[in-house]
């Protein structure tokens, strides 16, 4: 019998088994094929460049992908701040879709949030991490993460309710 997350003998075996999981994890969270491919590459290449004694499991690899995703959002947040410093206004385009499903709508709204808010809600709700676990991934304290989640939920609900009225 095969364990659901058994260690693979080689990195290549892990790659063959885990690629759809890692790519699916990233695609569901960033919603952008090019970004998902970049982060998938970064995840596996980081593993290949790492030292010998690492647990070659899908679960561990998803953890690496999660950190790559958070790093990407941090970079996005920096880029956004830079852009806002140059331009007085930003023009987030409205999504033309009407609401088809609550879940789909929620995912769309998630992509409209500020990167740090998207990161916090993704870790907490999509990944199901606890607040302390989310804090560890984000490199913040628990209290700061709780405060971030409050702001993130507020922005989420604001956009969600606003776009529901459209």
């Amino acid at each position, binding site marked *: 019998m095969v364990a659901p997350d058994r260690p693979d003998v*080689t990195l*290549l075996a892990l*790659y063959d088994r885990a690629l759809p999981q890692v790519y699916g994890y990233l*695609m569901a969270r960033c919603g952008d094929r090019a970004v998902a491919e970049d982060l*998938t590459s970064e995840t596996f*290449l980081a593993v290949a460049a790492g030292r010998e004694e690492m647990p070659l499991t899908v679960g561990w690899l998803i953890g690496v992908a999660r950190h790559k995703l958070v790093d990407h959002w941090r970079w996005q947040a920096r880029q956004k701040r830079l852009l806002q410093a140059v331009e007085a206004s930003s023009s987030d385009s409205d999504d033309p879709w009407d609401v088809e*499903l609550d879940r789909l709508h929620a*995912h769309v709204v998630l992509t409209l949030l500020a990167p740090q808010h998207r990161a916090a809600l993704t870790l907490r*709700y999509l990944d199901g991490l606890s607040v302390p676990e989310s804090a560890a991934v984000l490199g913040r304290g628990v209290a700061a993460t709780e405060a971030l989640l409050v702001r993130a939920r507020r922005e989420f609900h604001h956009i969600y309710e606003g776009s529901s009225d459209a």
Partner: protein
Amino acid sequence: MPDQQSDPLDALRSPITPLAPDAAFAADLRDQLVELCPHHLQRSLP
């Protein structure tokens, strides 16, 4: 119309759904792994 009774954030909770990437991308990345780290690829379990 979303259900006003439930928190829409709850709708985000879902397991990972495997998704196959573009085949050419997958093949390129596999080739890179083989080139970068052949010793990892051949490592055996203790």
